């Protein structure tokens, strides 16, 4: 093995990546070549310095949490919704930021909900149940059972699943597009849930027959969510969202102003 060849192989010799025969030949050349010895010892020193300096950077906890929360299975509905509405049109990593943030806040809220110990009145209990349900609906592939922006798809989907026909209204013009519906269980009975969206904020609208509240919506705030409760035309309505008070109010006003299908 000539000098050139041996010189080329020095990194491999240092890293013990050579075949046995190459290593032996390299070693033999190294024994009698000062230049190679010098380079070899320099490289070995660099390698040792790098390892000693411990330059490895660990992933920040928040990133680990964000990726763990966002990835396996959970976001697929969000992905679908996100793609449906082109929220990721900006492309790239930033498209995940709202999803990640949302999942993060959901995790945080679930945790704080767990800590929230109290003996609630039925109204408080119900609103707590709604918050939990709302959070749960965002967590898994659970926001919508039927994904459609068309009220004529969403409404018939409930047929045969409930003993009442929930009113489904299209509010896309008002900035609250319908994204789907689902069947849920609340306060000991099956209820219809229409999922609307205001910008990036999902709004869950729970509906079931009854007249528990007045026609004037009561607005509550709980764990950062805004809830509203009212009754109209023999139906109980609960709306919940992480959007602001104003937006929720606007949604209710538009909802009440529009005839159901």
């Amino acid at each position, binding site marked *: 093995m000539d000098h050139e060849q041996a010189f080329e192989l020095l990194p491999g010799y240092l890293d013990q990546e050579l075949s046995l025969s190459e290593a032996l030949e390299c070693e033999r050349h190294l024994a009698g070549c000062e230049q190679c010895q010098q380079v070899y010892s320099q490289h070995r020193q660099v390698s040792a*310095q790098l390892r000693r300096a411990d330059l490895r950077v660990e992933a920040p906890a928040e990133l680990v949490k964000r990726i763990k929360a966002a990835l396996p299975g959970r976001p697929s509905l969000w992905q679908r919704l996100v793609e449906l509405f082109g929220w990721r049109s900006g492309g790239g990593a930033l498209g995940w930021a709202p999803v990640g943030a949302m999942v993060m806040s959901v995790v945080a809220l679930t945790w704080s909900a767990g800590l929230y110990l109290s003996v609630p009145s039925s109204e408080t209990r119900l609103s707590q149940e709604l918050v939990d349900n709302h959070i749960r609906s965002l967590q898994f592939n659970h926001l919508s059972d039927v994904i459609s922006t068309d009220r004529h798809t969403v409404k018939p989907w409930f047929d045969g699943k409930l003993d009442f026909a929930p009113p489904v209204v299209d509010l896309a013009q008002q900035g609250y597009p319908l994204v789907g519906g689902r069947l849920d269980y609340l306060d000991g009975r099956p209820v219809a849930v229409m999922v609307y969206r205001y910008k990036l904020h999902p709004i869950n609208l729970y509906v079931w027959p009854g007249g528990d509240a007045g026609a004037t919506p009561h607005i509550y705030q709980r764990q950062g969510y805004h809830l509203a409760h009212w009754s109209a035309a023999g139906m109980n309505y609960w709306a919940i969202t992480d959007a602001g008070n104003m937006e929720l109010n606007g949604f209710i006003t538009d909802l009440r102003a529009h005839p159901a299908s």
Partner: protein
Amino acid sequence: MADPVSAQRFEKLVLPHMNSAFNVARWLTHNDQDAQDVVQEAYLRAFRFFGGFRGDDARAWLLSIVRNTFYTWYQQNRGHAPDTLEFEEDMHSLETSTADHDDNPEAMLICSQSRRRVHKALQSLRLEYREVIVLRELEELSYKEIATIVGIPMGTVMSRLGRGRQQLAALLAPTDQEA
């Protein structure tokens, strides 16, 4: 890739390598936030392509996605092809990279002077050398794995490692006695 079995497999095989992914991204991007974006995007891609993963080396597979994601990001953000690497060298000469890092908390932790010097030296290395050095010396990957990740023959891995170490030796040499 919606079925729970492969989601579980992904969790078991790919998630544990997040530190490696972040470390590589951090050394490629020079920046915490960019590294986070790259890793998050890489995980998204990895999750999407996981169905096609047949090998047994999930870390190398993930790191090749991290590297590809980085180069896409790099081209978009710098408006530079990845092979115009000289630019990189100018941008991250020793002086500027010191200034960059003096005011971030991570740099504060690099208290030991020799560690700082090594950090700066590696940071100032050209991208094509820096990546193989990081993969070898920090991630302790084999030549074969590095060849797969970077998409070059093993011989090229060896020669790049040689040149990278040579440059580092030169950068670290003058005050070597102090270190």
